[in-house]
């Protein structure tokens, strides 16, 4: 049976999924060679997110870098996945994880506020943190606030430990016990492919439907 002629099907309602990535730009990422893999992985992510219309229109990404002298730099402010270009992350300095998560939580809250002001529907935001070394700032109080915020359903957090020196206990302290994983220094491509597929699944989740994440590749292991 033919469809009704002359119908214009336009997407007049887009639900946003805000995603913040905290990436590690500390010196140890250079020493291990992981920084090149991270940058290649971000380029993969940028390409994959554009392959699907729902994802390209629905997902918005912001990227924070930890590095320098306990500094947190916003490499990418919130941008549609369709327009996302991978920044180049430099590896030099320390790992102020507490400050970075604090800033990410502020970013998420401000973005939700913008959505509300503009009448835009949105899904629970996602925060991904990736680190290969122990935090260099006072991160514990922030971790407690991050756990409380997740309890209050303010966002969902994924923690990814990189390599053998990954600060597993610290990363775990930012979560409520799940969504903690580890990868090798050469496994960024698989991890970002999985992240992209997860964001795609998250951007499509209908009301009342739990987001079913794609299968985790073997490179992304449980902590």
């Amino acid at each position, binding site marked *: *049976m033919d469809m009704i002629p002359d*119908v214009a*099907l336009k*997407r007049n309602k*887009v639900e946003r999924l805000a995603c913040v990535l905290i990436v590690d730009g500390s010196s140890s990422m250079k020493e291990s060679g992981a920084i090149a893999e991270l940058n290649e992985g971000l380029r993969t992510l940028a390409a994959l997110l554009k392959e699907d*219309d729902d994802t390209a229109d629905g997902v918005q990404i912001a990227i924070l870098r930890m590095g320098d002298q306990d500094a947190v730099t916003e490499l990418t402010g919130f941008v549609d996945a369709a327009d996302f270009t991978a920044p180049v992350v430099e590896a030099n300095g320390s790992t102020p994880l507490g400050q970075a998560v604090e800033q990410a939580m502020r970013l998420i809250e401000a973005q939700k506020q913008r959505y509300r002001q503009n009448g835009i529907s949105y899904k*629970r935001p996602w925060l991904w943190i990736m680190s290969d070394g122990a935090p260099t700032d006072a991160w514990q109080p922030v971790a407690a606030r991050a756990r409380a915020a997740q309890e209050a359903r303010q966002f969902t957090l994924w923690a990814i430990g990189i390599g053998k020196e990954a600060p597993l206990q610290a990363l775990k302290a930012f979560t409520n016990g799940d969504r903690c994983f580890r990868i090798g220094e050469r496994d960024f491509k698989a991890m970002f492919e999985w992240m992209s597929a997860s964001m795609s699944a998250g951007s499509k989740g209908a*009301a*009342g439907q739990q987001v079913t994440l794609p299968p985790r590749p073997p490179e992304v292991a449980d902590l």
Partner: protein
Amino acid sequence: MTAPPERNVEDIVPAAPASASTILEAAVAVPVQLQALEGAGWRVIGASLRGRDHVSRGIERQDAFAAAVVSSMAFAVVCDGAGSARCAAAGAARFSQAVLEALKHEAADGGIRFSVARFRDVVIEAVEACRAAIKAEGLPLHEHHTTLLVLAARTDATFIAHVGDGLAGVALSADWTEAKLSLPENGEYANETVFVTEDDWTERLRCCRLPALQPGRVAVILTDGTMPFVIGPDQKGLEPGFMAPVSRHLFATGGVPAAEALAATLGSPDACRISGDDKTLVWIGRLAV
């Protein structure tokens, strides 16, 4: 616009149902549900399709609708079962059918002059009875999570009852930009809505009386999978690029071909690209005299 001759209610799917239980089983089992009704100056065309995401994951359709024309009133009920609920499809089918049966009974029982308060009571009684029946069968209510949208059209008023997401729209102008809408009510997040199967559901029930449909005008009720291309760009009216050709076609065609064309439109590649969710739309037109 030439209206075809009036005829009796015609259910396309399920074909010639023998009983309410047959309707429920068929509505749950089939990937597509169609209905075309006509009588008392109303034309009602409905279609419900399994979404792309459910097809790819081998999941049944979790939307359902039920519609009737009784005693000069047109009724339509649309339910969207929660993807996380094990019996979502059965929940959507059971609640939509239960509310429709209650409204039909009310209309046939002389309740045609009911107020919005009485309309609300009928919906509450029907939902409560359905909840009680599910519990009496020893089934978990939360596994039947579903939203609910009800439209009752009378020649002097339109009534809407709404729990959760989905959209109801009554067009007031020929260009579709002026419409009375019942918008989704979700939690903070778009993918977290409320259901008639929750304990506090009556607190989330929104009922209103809207203007009557004038001859040649249209109302629609639909689930959230259909909403992105039916709601207008400002979220205040209906999308003319969809509503105008659809209504032109449904007013001109009617019957089984109209329902099939509506289903083909909801299942078109462009519609599936916009949303992978199940899609349900019931179109209610008041025929020109």
